[in-house]
Every structure is written in C-alpha cells, then in structure tokens.
C-alpha cells in the first residue's frame, strides 16, 4: 500500500542524506521524494511517498524519528490531506495536432510554457493521479521528455487533526 510521509527536519547539512541512507541500508524503497522550505526559517519539509505494508511504515516512521535532525514525522492520511505534484512534459505535436493537445491540457488546468516547431511543453499541477491521466493521454502523441517533482502535501484546513502521529514515538 502507498503512503505519504511528511517529515520536518532542521535545515542542516546531511539532513536529507541521513534519511535516504537510512532507507537504503534498511532496504526501504522510496517512490518519490520532494524537499523544500517551510513556513519556519531553518526548517525543511521532506515529503516521501513509499509503497509498503503497515508494519514497514511504522518502522520507517520510527527510524526517521530517531534521526537527530528530525523534528516531526507524520503520515498524510488520504482524504484528510491535499496532495499535489508538478509535471513538465514535452510532447511531439505537429502544428495540426496542437489545438487538440492544448484543449486537453486546458481541461487538466495545464498550460503551455513553451512551443517549438514540433514539440509543446506543458506545465501541470494536480494530484498525482491527474498527472498520471494526462500523461496517458499524451502517450499516443509521443512523449519526448517528462519530469515530475514528486508529491508534496498538507493537511486540510477543515480537519482538526488530519495527520496520524505514531503513539509509540510522540
């Protein structure tokens, strides 16, 4: 099962490496990873997407929690959190096919960020599932290049307590 873990860490050299080497040495896999600043200066947020059983998820959370630079580990529970990802995708498109592609992208709230002689570059933000769907629709046209940021997430405004913190560690 897939899980999204949000980790806030002190912004120190090696903070990310300590997490990724821990994953490597304990044999945990990372599906996607996104790192960036937060509302607090000196604090970064690392969003990890992992595909594992509940038992392994608990191990992952506890092992991350033990790292000295880790401030907080939470799981973003589906339905109680908003998750987004950014995709840049370069699609083959001869001028006669462009209108259709652009219309499709517009339906996904995407926009054209560059146009070439026979390619178009789209920028899309959405849930990872929406990006997957657009990706599939572009496939027949020929995808020249594709990059995604990995998902980030935040708890919903309406929820009082949207994230599950591990009883044993907090």
């Amino acid at each position, binding site marked *: 099962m897939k899980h999204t873990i949000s980790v806030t*860490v*002190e912004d120190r*050299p*090696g903070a990310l*490496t*300590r997490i990724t*080497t*821990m994953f*490597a*040495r304990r044999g945990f896999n990372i599906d996607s990873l996104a790192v960036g600043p937060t509302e607090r200066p000196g604090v970064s947020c690392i969003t990890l997407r992992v595909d594992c059983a509940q*038992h392994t998820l*608990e*191990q992952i959370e*506890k*092992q991350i*929690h*033990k*790292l*000295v*630079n*880790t*401030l907080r580990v939470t799981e973003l529970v589906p339905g109680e959190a908003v998750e987004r990802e950014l995709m840049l995708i370069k699609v083959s498109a001869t001028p006669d096919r462009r209108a259709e592609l652009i219309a499709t992208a517009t339906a996904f709230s995407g926009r054209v960020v560059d146009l070439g002689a026979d390619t178009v570059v789209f920028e899309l933000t959405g849930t990872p599932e929406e990006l997957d769907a657009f990706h599939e629709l572009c496939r027949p046209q020929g995808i020249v290049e594709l990059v995604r940021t990995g998902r980030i997430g935040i708890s919903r405004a309406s929820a009082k307590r949207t994230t599950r913190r*591990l009883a*044993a*560690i907090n």
Partner: protein
Amino acid sequence: MKMRGADAVLRSLEAEGVDTMFGIPGGAIMPTYDAMARGTSVRHVLARHEQGAGHMAQGYARASGRVGVAIATSGPGATNLVTPIADAWMDSTPLVCITGQVRTSLIGTDAFQECDITGVTMPIVKHSWLVHDPREIAGVMKAAFHVARTGRCGPVLVDIPRDVQEAEVDFAYPDKVELPGWKPPRKVHPLQIKQAAEAIANAEKPVLYVGGGTLNADACAELLEVAETGRFPVITTLMGKSAFPETHELHFGWPGMHGPKWANLAMNTCDVLVAIGARFDDRVTGKLTAFAPGATVVHLDIDAAEISKLRDADIPVVGPLKQALAALAKEVGKLREAGAPVPEAWLRRIADWRDEFPLRYGGRSGDWPKPQWVMEQLQELTAGEDVIVSTGVGQHQMWAMQYILSERPRTFITSGGLGTMGFGIPAAIGAKAARPEATVVCVDGDGCFQMTCQELATAALENLPIVVVLVNNGYLGMVYQWQDMFFEGRYSHVHLTKSVPDYARLAEAYGGVGMTVTEESEVRPALEEALQLGRTVVVDVHVDPKEQCFPMIPAGAAALDMIEYPEAMEAEA
C-alpha cells in the same frame, strides 16, 4: 575566554568530565595534540592502531558506563576507526570519536589524507558533525556527548578541519544542548507498565530475556528486584551478560546459537517472554518464525524502533529501563501480594532441564587441555574476585560465555552484534583504564589475537596491565567448525598453526610476560601466576583443536532444532 579551536576541544572534554581518551596523532589532528602538550587534565592513552584506540574507548565505556572517547587524524586514521564505530553502533556503546580533517579550503579536493569520514560513517553513527567554524566547537561537543549517552546509547563522530582547530575562538561551554529534534523518551507510560505487570505476574511460564540495554540503562538493581519480587527466571544474552548475577538461583543461562539447551528450551516454550533491552537478534532467535511460538511478548526498550521490528510485541513498554523496571517491580509486588501465583513449577522444570542437558565436552584425557576445561579453571580462579573479562569473537568467546559466571554489572565485555575479531585485547586495555583496581582478563583466540596484538605495547607502556588467556587451537576455530559441519569437512584457509607466531615470545617482545602451556597440569599454575603478577601477561594455552562449540543452533534453523554435543566426540575423548 580566547583560545584556539584545539584548546576548545580539550576544554570541552574536561567540562564533560572525561578522564581518559584513546588515540593516535597525525597531520590533521596535530593542533589538538599540540594543545594536549600544552596541558590538559584528560589522560591520553597512545594506541598503536586507531582500531585499537576505538575498541579501547569501547572497553572503557562498557566497563565504566561513561562515554568513551577516541581521537584520530583524518583519512586513514579516521577510516581505521570505522570498525570500532560500527561495533559501537551494533552494541549500543556510547562513544565520541574525534577526527581531524583537512583544512576547510581543501575539503573536496582529494587532498592528502582527505576522506569524507562523516559520509563514510553515516549509516553507523547516531549523528555526526563536520565543524566548519571554531565557534561551533563547544556546542557540537556538548551535543555529541548528549546524543551518545541519551536514548539508546551509541557512537557519534565529530570531524574537525585543521584550520578550525587552529583558529582563535572565544570559548564558553554551554549549559544547555540545542537539539530540537533529539527527544529520546524520558518517561514510561504507567498503563503500559500495568499491562506488562499483569501479563508477567499471571504467567505460568514467564521468562525475562535480558539484553545489553539493561546494562546501558544502569538498571541491573531494578532487574534483580523484578526477578526476585516475581520469582521470574532470567536469561541474559551475550550483550546482557553480567546484568544479572549468574550464580543467582534465578539465572538460567544464555540464549541462542551456542546457548545451553535449558536456556533455549525455556525461551522457546515460555508463555510470556519479557524482552528487556534486547532486540531479537538472529543469533538469539534462530529461525524467527519458529521462535518462542505462542508466547505473549512484552518488550521493554528505550528505542521505539526496536518494538515490533522483528517480533511483534503484544505489550510494548517504551522508555528508560531503570524507571520501567522499578515501576514493574512495584506492580508485580502488588500482584504477588494479591495472590498472583509464583511460577515455582516452571522454575523447577527449567532447573530439571539444566540437570538433564548440562553443558558437556569431551573428557580430559586428550593430548591437549580442553578449551572448556581451561575456561572452568579460569572461572574457579576468578570467582568472587573483582575481575572483568573481555573476549574476541569465535569459539573461545562462546566458551567464555558458557563457563565464566559474571557476578557484577559491566564485567563481561564482548563484541556481540558486529562480531569483531580482535576486539578483546584493546577492549581489555580500555576496561583497565576505566577500572584500574580490577583484574582485567582477555579471553582471546589465536585468530583474534593476531588482529590487534600490537596493543600489548600500549598495555605495557601505559601501565594498563591485562591478562590474555589465549585459547590457542591453531585454527580460525569457528570457521573450522562450520566447514566441518556445513561444508563437508573441506577446510579452506583456516589453519594458522599454534606455533607461529610464538605468542609467549611475542608478549615478551612487547614488554609483557609470556607463558606457553601445553599440558593440563600447567594450566592452573600458569593462570594463578598470571592473575597475581600485575603485569601484562599472555598465557598461551595450546588446546585441543578438534574441540567444537556445542550446543549449536545452525544459522537459520529453529532454536529447538539445536545440535547437542556429539556423543561420538565425547566417547573419542
């Protein structure tokens, strides 16, 4: 106060109350060694190899309960510390390693003796710091000691570039640690204790499975209290050895691969298994899915990540063991007063197993003394004395575990998790530095001995005398045993010979005393003399090379499928 960074390092060590550090100087750490020459209250023990220095610091930490300190230069000096760091990581030994680093302007340029040691050691330290600015030194040192000894103990590394050691700084040692992310549990949950107490006190067949965490938590008195209050049988792991007095009527041996049959029977047929600062290591459990089937597991540990890592815990208790065990003893006492039955029948059953399946070895009529018999002599000669035993890794280690009875906490020091051959001699030296009043004996194998014997020079010259009892069978004995049992007797590169080197003469060459013993009749007099001399002694005891270590649970087998001492071997001897 204005001073150089190097002086700030030493003032930090002094502020932490460090009395001894172990190390070797070299280019990138020279400013700190120069600061030592200018004066410090910290004793520096000069090792002959950085690995030796690291293991000495471990031995010091394990014997004293204080944080061990090792110091080395950059590059090869630092990489030589990797083995002790990994060992300390696996065995949760509090260790602060200080390494020199090339100048900050040279970092990343492949400079002479440059090595990214914080990178190399990242998977095997609790935390590490590369100090970029001399103003960070005091805070980092404070944090390093704090992290090493709080929560689950373990190694940390402080890497200090040469120019940072040389730069001037205004030094003030902080009172508080600035580590917002480091929050080891400080309290145990009373509800968890209550649940645990009820499960244990009402168990028909409880077992306390005690690991090294109990020693690290300084919770041995509380453990004794729990065991005696509830009359629970205690089984101590290799790392937990000495946490519970082993002549106590409630102590029932050691579990796992070479544990006696009665201990493994008790562990694997109990109804409530209480893991205390233990981590269900594969050498203890054998095949995990077949381990202690049906037992309710109560798991007490300071490290939440150990709970349900390998075996699901039915009742987890996360927190400091000293506090947890004290509370547990109280709760168990209440339940006993309220009439919870004492498991006397179960205690009798384990005792019966012990009578039925004792540790056995071949008779004493062979050409050479039996190694187990040598251990028995050592046990008899040291019983009741203030003796600390360290070991290497292999057959001799297992025999020491089986035959040496540890009475007081922190008197059995061995490499458990990493299984580091060569650990014994330097660890003994470190233990001697921590406890000069104790007699420190290293039970070593001939293979292990040759990995770190250069430290005999350290023992002799630093006035840290140790007695090495060399169980010399001329083989890498444990590998020999495995090749015999699992590789159809194809002995591949395991023969070291008993005579090269001449261990006694080597001991003399290093400024110690050497004795060679080949006859059974010479063993006791030699050991007696060695224990009395107050000098560094190597007693090279030539033992029966055919003797193997039993019982044995083959790797990956179920604990109850242990192989006992073969009747054939007994008859042959």
